[in-house]
């Protein structure tokens, strides 16, 4: 019996916290769904990163193969 009541008290103590959490979540539901452009921008950023990374290798390539450039 003593063990059970202890458990109940623990749950009761957490109730306000739980409710506060649910209230906070309830307040967040007004967020709008994201639209397509976000995906497109991400693709551009990834490519751009690769291009900057390649810049030094393409310079070396010209020095190493002057006959084809």
């Amino acid at each position, binding site marked *: 019996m003593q063990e059970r009541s202890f458990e109940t008290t623990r749950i009761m103590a957490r109730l306000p916290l739980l409710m506060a959490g649910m209230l906070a979540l309830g307040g967040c539901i007004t967020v709008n769904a994201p639209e397509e452009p976000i995906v497109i921008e991400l693709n*551009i950023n990834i*490519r*751009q990163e*690769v*291009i*900057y*990374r*390649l*810049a030094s*290798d*393409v*310079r070396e*390539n*010209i020095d*190493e*193969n*002057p*006959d*084809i*450039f």
Partner: protein
Amino acid sequence: MKQMDFRKPALALLAAATGLAVLATPALAARDPEYAAARKSGQVGEKMDGYLGIVGAETADLRRVVSKINILRRDNYTTRAQAQGATLEEYAFTQGCILILRTVPGEKYQAPNGSWLTRTSAPPQRHVQCP
């Protein structure tokens, strides 16, 4: 006698120039003379995609020169893109950016709007994504 006096220094100069050229480019092969001439005269130019293009009227000779170089470039880009973990298009595009940057005044290059421009002493017009 007069002709002899003229020829000797000329020959010496030629020999010196050849010697210098050989010293400047030890083991590396230079551009094919036909390609070099087409470049200089603006008959071929550097495209945005990393390959050579024919500017103006196409001839069989120009097509041969350009396709020979472009096949070699494609092979080269494929190998190097793989080594760098990039796609062929990404590598070729980046190479094109730097090749356009390295054109010398008088040579042709492709502007971001697709038109052919002649390189001046001013920086070339390049694609916004160029490094």
